[in-house]
């Protein structure tokens, strides 16, 4: 019997599907167009599984590809290989006990979990974190963004065979991890932003060492510009690949660099400012062409902007003042009935925590809104059609998805 995939979500295949020239892009924004008969017995099509363990997959997720020759005619995304049930676990933990586990929801950029959770708890408990703590929180979030982008750049280049970029960015990311270690006491899971404020202030001489680190990152980024962005191979493969039509941004819930690369200046830091962002000078970085190359470039420039933000923060932040608000005894902290949604702009897009409390000592419901869910699942299934097999990895990486955050 002929295999009948559900193609209702995808546009009809174009006759010139193999071409990725911008002029021939599918500008259709319709969500339900046509259907394709795929007869696997015909010998013309092949099922190909990419992942869950595959170097071209960012973390533990899997792509079920139907290919014709080396062209993908249909792709399905599968997640569930990394489910740890954090949201449910939190319903059985006191508010302070949730603090050490939220960072694990997203490994490469854990601080957004800490911030969003802390801010949600503070809002529902009626607590205001001290100003100095807000500055340090902002600093940590920007440091985390730099790290996340460095990791991405290595992955994006590696997906197209440029292995050296990953080595360079890993080196400078390690320098930034050193700064995290001296500030928070840990390299990966910092567990530093907790409901009420932050654990501690900056260590002595931190500004100087951070400046040295930033200078080194800038040096490496200038090399990355030469070797990755001004590279014929990278351009050949990335330009025109994975075009996201600006009209798809809203219906697909696309946020962050993928949206900004399409010319849509979405940035929660500007749109709904939080922490000390209103006091910082910056403009969201945007691009125009909405392809893999543009997204990479937007992220590169966003990274440079984060470096500038870190400098602004260190120059302007108050050096004295409390770091923790007055909080009740955390061992039996009960929070009145309420619900809230806290959002922030992480390196991958909008990150949010929806928290419901019922007056008890435990969260009633926690829902984590990570950008990877929308980007890696729905959007990827649409973008993957007509993609060359060899480009699938580059396409997926360009959406900058972290499966741990899909599976909370």
């Amino acid at each position: 019997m002929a295999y009948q995939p559900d193609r209702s979500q995808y546009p009809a295949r174009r006759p010139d599907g193999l071409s990725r020239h911008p002029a021939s892009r599918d500008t259709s924004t319709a969500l339900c167009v046509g259907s394709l008969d795929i007869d696997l017995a015909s010998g013309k099509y092949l099922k190909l599984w990419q992942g869950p363990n595959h170097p071209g997959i960012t973390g533990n997720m899997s792509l079920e590809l139907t290919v014709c020759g080396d062209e993908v005619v249909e792709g399905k995304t599968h997640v569930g290989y990394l489910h740890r049930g954090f949201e449910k676990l939190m319903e059985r933990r006191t508010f302070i006990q949730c603090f050490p586990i939220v960072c694990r929801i997203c490994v490469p950029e854990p601080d957004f979990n800490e911030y969003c959770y802390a801010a949600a708890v503070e809002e529902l408990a009626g607590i205001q974190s001290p100003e100095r703590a807000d500055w340090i929180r902002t600093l940590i979030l920007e440091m985390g963004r730099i790290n996340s982008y460095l990791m991405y750049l290595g992955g994006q280049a590696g997906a197209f065979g440029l292995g050296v970029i990953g080595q360079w960015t890993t080196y400078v990311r390690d320098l930034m991890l050193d700064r995290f270690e001296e500030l928070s006491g840990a390299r990966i899971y910092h567990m530093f932003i907790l409901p009420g404020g932050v654990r501690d202030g900056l260590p002595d001489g931190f500004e100087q060492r951070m400046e040295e680190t930033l200078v080194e990152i800038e040096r490496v980024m200038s090399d990355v510009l030469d070797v990755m962005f001004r590279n014929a191979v990278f351009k050949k493969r990335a330009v025109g690949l994975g075009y996201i039509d600006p009209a798809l941004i809203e219906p697909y819930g696309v946020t962050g660099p993928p949206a900004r690369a399409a010319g849509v200046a979405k940035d929660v830091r500007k749109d709904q400012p939080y922490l000390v962002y209103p006091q910082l000078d910056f403009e969201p970085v945007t691009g125009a062409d909405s392809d893999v190359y543009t997204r990479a470039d937007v992220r590169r420039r966003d990274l440079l902007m984060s470096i500038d933000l870190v400098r602004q923060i260190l120059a302007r932040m108050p050096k004295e003042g409390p770091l923790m608000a007055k909080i009740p005894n955390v061992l039996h902290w009960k929070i009145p009935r309420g619900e809230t949604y806290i959002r922030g702009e992480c390196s991958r897009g909008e990150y949010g925590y929806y928290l419901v409390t019922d007056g008890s000592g435990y969260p009633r419901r926690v829902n984590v809104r990570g950008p990877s869910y929308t980007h890696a699942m729905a959007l990827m299934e649409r973008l993957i059609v007509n993609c060359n097999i060899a480009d699938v990895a580059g396409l997926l990486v360009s959406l900058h998805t972290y499966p741990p955050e899909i599976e909370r």
Partner: protein
Amino acid sequence: MGFCMSVRDVLSPFTAWKNLFLDPVTIRDPLNDRPGAARYRGFHQNDVGRCIGCGTCETICQNGAIDMVPAEGIETKQGDSGLRPRIDYGRCCWCALCVDVCMTGSLTMSNAYKWVESDPDLFRFTPGVDRKYWDDAERGYRRPEDHRLTPRERAHMGEMAPEARIGSFDEIVHGYSIEQARLEADRCVACGLCVATCPAHMAIPDYIAAVRDGDYERGLRLLYDTNPFSQICGRICTHRCETTCAARHEGDPIAIRWLKRHICDQIPHEKYLEIVGKPAPATGKRVAIVGAGPAGLTAAFDLAKQGHSVTVFEALDKPGGMTRWGIPEYRLPYDIIDREVAVIRSLGVDIRCNQRIGRDISLKSLRNGHDAVLITLGLQLGRSTRIPGSDHADVRKSVDLLRQARACEDFGTPRQAVVIGGGNVAMDIARTLARLQKLAYGEVRVTVTALEDFAHFLADPEEVKEAGEEGILILDARGPQQVVVEDGKVVGLRTWRVKAIFDEQGRFAPSYDETDEQFHPGEMVVESIGQMTDTALLGDALSEQLAWNRGRLQVDLGGRTSESWLWAAGDMVRGPDVVSAVADGHRVAASIHAALNPMKERQ
């Protein structure tokens, strides 16, 4: 941007080659060449001498990685559970909440991050007890100075200003409002060290939780489970629980006594009888109790609840014992005692006042008419310094004077008085005299001379502070030498400075600096240096039969004397404070109950 390729795009990537000439950035031996940062959250350290085994770390650990286990080689002391945290590194996530919440600051983390073992079980260890190479590491995560996860400061208790309170015998402290009580109850970490310390082993964390929940009936039920003198203890308990409170180490101890009082104050008196409950069906056994103080009435409460018929004989005209006759009204208003006694009476306890042993009744008749007799005589006789002049009529004992003051008898308030003694009773009489002076003459002229210096003072610090605020002069390290009498009248007290109170063997033998002599003028000298039991009440014949131990009646663990029908309890056996008497009352009641129900006990 770059859809148009150029030659540069072909050549530019080759700039990567310039890195060939740079030094490698990797660290060859990271474990040795690169120590963890100063704040690094590495392996745990525990200063076991400072740790009190409160288990708060175990409570907060979200991974269940910490178990409190008995630790070898730790000296058991008051306010220490003897347990120490054992950490399972198979579960630990190095979040350091245990360090943040540690009540003493004993738990820290080193910056070490290398630990190799072939046996996985070894990764479950008790820091500080199982010695590790990082135990003495100076760097690593310590809780930052101002970082606390539990509030450190006690909720404010309102009280009368010194000027206002000195002019009357009104109660000084106001008691907590519901909001204040909740704030204070919130600070408790429910470690339970206080339960072990309290002589009556009251369920302190549980009733504090009841305050948090606003469930005062549950709280009162918990109080009366262990202490039928909760209303009184809520005001004047010596609160040893607060001296072992885990919160004491880095902040104020929880105001356990005031929270107990708060629960009692929240429940209307009519509700008490309902909450305390009804006695068990009558057993037909009769118990006589001599003395209606806390020990006797606690025993009466327990025995009556168990269904025994209890009669209490009290020598004075009102029940309450020392709580009524020894504690000034500004600390314990009379109606509190009346309410407490009413609860005990509601269980069917027959309290007969003005019944003095040897005068109105005899122990022999009690023995004949009852299945068991309990004597709780208390400490009614004041001790004397026996210094020259102390036999003068205007040299008084504090215990007698306090009784007279509470009975509103006129004993001729002196214009100027000297108190000998540095305990809480000395403070009580000094402050009582101060009030009487203020009421009679408009000024306070009381001097307290204590044997101990302020570093070793016997009275509670707040008593000393409040007495000072009320205009009482307190002198430490003064040894009384002579009551000076001129023309038949007391004119004052002569003291020497105390060099040491105890001799080298630790025996009481004060030595003085005779060159430092002071004279404290006063027309009355009050001796407040201790009390003893009036054992003459027992009669010569019975005293002969009973076994004694250093002047005290010898009793077994349950309070039974060498005569099988006679039990003794309270200050005359153990003490001296209300909560110890309550605990003793429970003990002796259990012993009497067991003796009255031998069969049941065996089942």
